């Protein structure tokens, strides 16, 4: 850890060291006793989390720092004023911080059990530096049953066939488009890609790609992209066409389905229902089906999640994280609904809404749980607007919906992916 720490920029390190010393003295003098937790959440989520920690014996100050928590924590670290605990949206960050020696090792509560695919992501050299607090189920399609005149597709080929049929109908103006897609948000496209990739590439390649050990020019990556191209290039697949889809954000794509009924199905994570509740017309509830794979069984499950970490040198941080990892800590969140716990010790029956109860069941029953790939990628490769894998997938989407032959689009995309992975490796 110190070896890696030494590779940090000399000036910054000197600055951090000197200010950390100053801060240590000042901190003791002031005698700050309450714990500080930095989270990415805002609004309702933040309020609910405050309710969660209100039950903790010590006063806990929760600060919502917005989406760029990495920049915030880096700056705080440089200033020597790191919070005691942070809840991070990407396991890649947990690993990076642990390698820099910023975090303290954790022992979760005895009852804490995360799905097998997720626990390893928060460990460095077999030491655990984070525990999962929140999960998102990312392998779901949403639709109104009344708008889908057939059985929900259970295999990828069935989905393609359905899209072709509905697309042809939409082209002649006889019905809504089959799919809504928020391609303006790069993460929507990476979620698509990850579901297909996990299905066709297998656990090893998926994991190897995540930690930068496999080549993105692997045949199976190209195959996954080929499948996406097959679906996305269907004429009339999206309301307004591919160009319009690229200017449609995630929430708007849900509105297209639940309000305008301009599209039949939308792929999205389990938090779709929050948006749908606000914009739905009529009383019909949304139904879901699992992201279809090559086979009827053994479909991989993609999850996202937030992990809690304790910063090194923080007194009481590790205890708070351990307390959070206990199944009972999250009762307020469960009561509010819309929350999926990564902790398998949380009883399925304690979920209020039937959907969450089913998803929690799926989380337990899944043969392979794969964590969101883009969230594990290093550096800028992880993607944000106009950057990294988000941008590459958007380029790919633009090319295949614009009529470029799939082969060329795939070659271009895998080339870009490989180059981005290479650049990210160099930056480490």
């Amino acid at each position, binding site marked *: 850890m110190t070896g890696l720490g030494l590779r940090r*920029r*000399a*000036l*910054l390190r000197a*600055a*951090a060291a*000197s*200010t950390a010393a*100053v*801060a240590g003295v*000042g901190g003791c003098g002031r005698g700050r006793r309450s714990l500080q937790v*930095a989270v990415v959440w*805002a*609004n309702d989520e933040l309020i609910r989390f405050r309710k969660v920690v209100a039950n903790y014996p010590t006063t806990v100050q929760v*600060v*919502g*720092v*917005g*989406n*760029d928590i*990495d*920049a*915030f924590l*880096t*700056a*705080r670290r*440089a*200033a*020597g*004023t790191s919070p005691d605990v942070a809840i991070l949206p990407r396991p890649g960050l947990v690993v990076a911080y642990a390698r820099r020696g910023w975090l303290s090792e954790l022992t979760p509560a005895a009852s804490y059990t995360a799905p097998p695919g997720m626990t390893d992501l928060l460990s460095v050299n077999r030491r655990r530096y984070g525990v999962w607090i929140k999960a998102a189920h990312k392998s779901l399609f949403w639709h109104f049953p009344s708008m889908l005149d057939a059985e929900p597709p259970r295999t990828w080929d069935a989905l393609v066939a359905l899209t072709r049929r509905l697309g042809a109908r939409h082209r002649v103006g006889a019905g809504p488009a089959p799919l809504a897609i928020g*391609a*303006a*948000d*790069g993460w929507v496209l990476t979620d698509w890609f990850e579901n297909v990739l996990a299905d066709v590439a297998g656990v090893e390649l998926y994991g190897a790609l995540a930690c930068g050990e496999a080549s993105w020019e692997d045949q199976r990556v190209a195959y996954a992209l080929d499948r996406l191209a097959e679906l996305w290039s269907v004429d009339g697949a999206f309301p*307004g*066409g591919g*160009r*319009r889809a*690229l*200017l449609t*954000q*995630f*929430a*708007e794509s*849900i*509105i297209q389905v639940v*309000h*305008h009924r301009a599209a039949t199905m939308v792929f999205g994570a389990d938090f779709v229902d929050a*948006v749908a509740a*606000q*914009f739905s017309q009529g009383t019909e509830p949304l139904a879901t089906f699992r992201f279809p794979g090559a086979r009827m069984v053994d479909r991989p499950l993609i999850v996202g999640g937030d992990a809690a970490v304790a910063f090194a040198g923080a007194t009481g941080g590790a205890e708070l994280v351990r307390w959070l990892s206990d199944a009972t800590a999250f009762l307020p969140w469960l009561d509010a609904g819309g929350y999926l716990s990564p902790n398998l010790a949380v009883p399925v029956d304690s979920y209020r809404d039937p959907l969450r109860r089913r998803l929690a069941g799926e989380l337990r029953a899944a043969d392979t749980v794969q964590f969101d790939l883009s969230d594990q990628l290093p550096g*800028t490769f992880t993607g*944000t*607007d*106009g*950057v990294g894998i*988000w*941008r590459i997938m*958007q380029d790919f989407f*633009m090319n295949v919906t614009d009529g470029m032959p799939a082969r060329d689009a795939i070659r271009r995309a895998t080339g870009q992916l490989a180059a981005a992975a290479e650049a990210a490796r160099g930056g480490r």
Partner: protein
Amino acid sequence: MSRGPLLGELAVLDDVGPPRRGRAYPAAGVGWALLTPAVLLLGGLLAWPVLRTMHASVTTDGRWVGDEHYRAALSAPGSAAVIGRTLLWALLVPAVVTVLGYLLAAASRRSQEGWLVRLILVVPTALPLVVTGVTFRLLYDPDPQRGLATLLLVRVTGRDPEQLPQLLGPGLVTVAVMSAFVWAWVGLAMLVFRAALDAVPSGLVDAVRAFGGNRRDVLWDAQWRPLLLRTVAVVFALVAVGTSRTFDLILVMTPGSVRDEAAVLSLRIWQTSGATTTGEGAALGVVWLVAVTAGMLVVALFVRQAWPPPQQPAGAAVTSPPPRRLVRLLAAGAAIAWLLPLGVLAATSLQSPVRAATGGWWSSPPGLDSYRAVLSGTELWRSLGFTLVLATVVTAAVLGVALLAAYPLAWLTGPAAQVTGLVLMAAVVVPVQVIAGPLNEVLGLTLSSGTARGVALVHIALGVPFAVLVLRNSFADLTAEQIRAARLGGRHWWGTLRRLARHNRTALVAVAVLEFVQVWNDLVVGLLFSGPDAAPLGLFLAGQTRGFVAGSGTLAAGCVLASILPVLVFVLARRQVVAGLVAGGVR
């Protein structure tokens, strides 16, 4: 203000310079003491970060790597396009703004309804660029059910929206962002041109006419050569420097899929480095810094001559005929065109959140639901309160620091004065994205990174150079009698300073208003330096654009609420702002 503002006299004054030395000049020790706050701020928060950026651009972990970062940054995919686009911004947009600003100033100058046109054009100048971005994104929404521009395109061409060019699509997004920028900046250009035109002695026009000159001769001999040439250069430079603000617009207006098609250097640097220091980001930053500084030097040489402050018009007798009908139509048309986006924003804010997300603002009756939704939350109130305190504190601090520093600097003459002017100008144009990483390191040293204190410090450091520049020039422009009176009246240097400052009220008001509006409207400083306890308004609004369509009602309502104060302040003080700018800022 007792003297007649004759052009010739002022030119002579500038050539010789007012007798600046030896009167009321603070003792050397005091002079340095007065300069200390400004020097510390500029040295620590501007000069050192710039040097550190240069250092980082040629090193990795302190090891010399030569031009490796430059080659990597420039050969990265899309870099050439980004640089080309930045140049296009710096050349095309100022040209358009200058031409439009001049035409509208001329058109609205002597007509009855001119004041209304000017008022409408000035309002966008005071809006936060975040609000401008939101406004134009609403206007250009690709869905004909929501976007007025798209709806009009569909109606006019009679084609399916799928076959029409998308205003926010990859092909046109830069044009769309540029149009928003022009909308926001023409008002300022027009104000400056109007001040310049008013400063042209009407006697000159009469003289040209008396010698049989036609309209074109009047324009050329009585306006362009004596004054407008320099005004054009100044406005052009002002806008060119201002184009580095496009960052805010791009961030707000472009969906993620087309952000690269709109990217300019500022955005690319932010995407590469964020608020940290990276080699490639630093290399791009140095390239940009060199270009900006070179451009600034060219302009500085070009407009070396002083710009006569328009301290009139003492009943400026209008002798020339009112503008032609065509010109007046132009003014009226511009007023309508400039009013339209404001109307779109207001109308959208009057839709309920669900209606605004699902249909056009024209399709359902107005209501106050979105305002209710925004105002019932605590976040907007917190942001408003924080931003108000921040802007007030920063403005006061900048005024204080700049006043102290401007006083001794005003008595410098010759090369020393010129060098100080150039250094200050260079400090004004340093783009904050370039130095964000090192700045954060410095803030880390002062324990204020990610805090309200840190944000305020950065704002003060960025605001001081311009304020010093304006105040220094306005001190230097004081007449001999005023200085003598202050010298006699004030017992110590601070008494003299206080008395002199009273004569500089216009410049002080201009600096205060500009600084206040700038901090209030800021996005980039908040984005790069704020933390949990410091959530300025711009950041709050920009954060909501993530789900733009779904949140457009509350977003528009928040934008309207956020714009009221800066617009009021700027509109009320616009005369002082322009007079102060013209007198001090643009030498």
